[in-house]
């Protein structure tokens, strides 16, 4: 049993035209037993910055709480929101602090820069950043997710098309992974609005 596949998870973020989408599955399990079907893996840091965390559920929650804390302090001190790249550097630094006793979670960070261009990146559990122009994936279903994204992704999709693409990629991948699934949630973020939709897939 691997610690990163104890709870099961699937996460994607994709870049669109002046927008981005971030999606995750909703299952929380204890190995093969499903405990919850409404587990939150994607969190809002500020209006145009979201972080999704895959891996061990307790670390998902703790990492989110720590990141929220750091961002709130930053906001109070600097009187502005963090830029997505800055936030990614912060996540990377915080994970590396625990290099020899890491958090078992692999975050994906998705945000809009001040000029409206989307930014996505992922890091491994000890903070190695990986920037991407098109999509990033994370979780137990990551191999299927990579395949699905690679074949379904097109650049410069409008928010509605991006929603379709990311949803299909997510649902088809979690069907190939027994410990992720039980529905999905997708946030499509543009400069002026966020549309959040839940997905009903194979509820198993």
């Amino acid at each position, binding site marked *: 049993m691997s610690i990163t596949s104890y709870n099961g998870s699937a996460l994607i973020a994709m870049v669109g035209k002046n927008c981005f989408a971030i999606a995750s599955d909703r299952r929380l399990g204890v190995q093969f037993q499903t405990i919850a079907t409404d587990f939150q893996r994607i969190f809002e840091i500020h209006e145009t910055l979201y972080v999704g965390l895959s891996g061990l559920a307790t670390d998902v929650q703790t990492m989110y709480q720590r990141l929220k804390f750091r961002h709130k302090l930053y906001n109070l001190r*600097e009187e502005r929101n963090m*830029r997505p790249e800055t936030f990614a*550097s912060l996540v990377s*630094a915080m994970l590396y602090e625990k290099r020899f006793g890491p958090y078992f979670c692999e975050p994906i960070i998705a945000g809009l820069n001040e000029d409206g261009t989307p930014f996505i990146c992922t890091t491994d559990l000890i903070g190695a950043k990986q920037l991407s122009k098109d999509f990033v994936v994370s979780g137990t279903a990551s191999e299927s997710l990579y395949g699905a994204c690679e074949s379904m992704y097109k650049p410069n999709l409008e928010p509605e098309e991006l929603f379709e693409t990311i949803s299909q990629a997510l649902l088809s991948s979690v069907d190939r992974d027994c410990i992720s699934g039980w529905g999905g949630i997708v946030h499509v973020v543009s400069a002026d609005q966020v549309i959040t939709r839940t997905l009903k897939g194979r509820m198993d």
Partner: protein
Amino acid sequence: MGDSQYSFSLTTFSPSGKLVQIEYALTAVGAGQTSLGIKASNGVVIATEKKLPSILVDENSVHKIQLITPNIGVAYSGMGPDSRVLVRKSRKQAQQYKRLYHEPIPLSQLVRETAAVMQEFTQSGGVRPFGVSLLMAGFDDNGPQLYQVDPSGSYFSWKASAIGKNVSNAKTFLEKRYTDDMELEDAIHTAILTLKEGFEGQISGKNIEIGIVDASRKFRVLTPAEVDDYLAEVE
């Protein structure tokens, strides 16, 4: 850190509500060589007197204006060695910020952290306050900025300010000359004229130091030759 009987803070309140050590620190600053800074619309200039104790001192080895980051510089009035400690700490803080966020530290944040260090030394046992006021100048995402930090740890953002000897004359001069739409070149000339006002002896590129930062966000100290050129322009 001293005998337990005498390990009380030197900064205990006086009956009038003042911290006498800080007052004395400010006096030390007021006896120091004049420094001033002017914020222009497109940059900041800081300048300081560089009177050396003897003509035998190698003036090229003395750097009164120092870089904290590529886009932030600092001048001081008061005790040189105290300023070096603060410059060292500020440089470290700026680098830590950079390591964490991969972004250059905004000047206001650096000033806040430096001021916090100075305040620590007014509320700890067995230490004395720093005997310097700093003028920190920089150009970041919020444009050109000039801050003054005092031994008490208070800091202020200025359009133009002077510290050290001759402060009141210098400030009066600056008040008359300062305009909001001043450009960096004008500001440099005004800075030189202000220094000249209270300067004892012949002013030259060897006994003043000028640092500027413009929209290129690169702070640099002018060479004595460049300073002499500006001095000639001002004549």
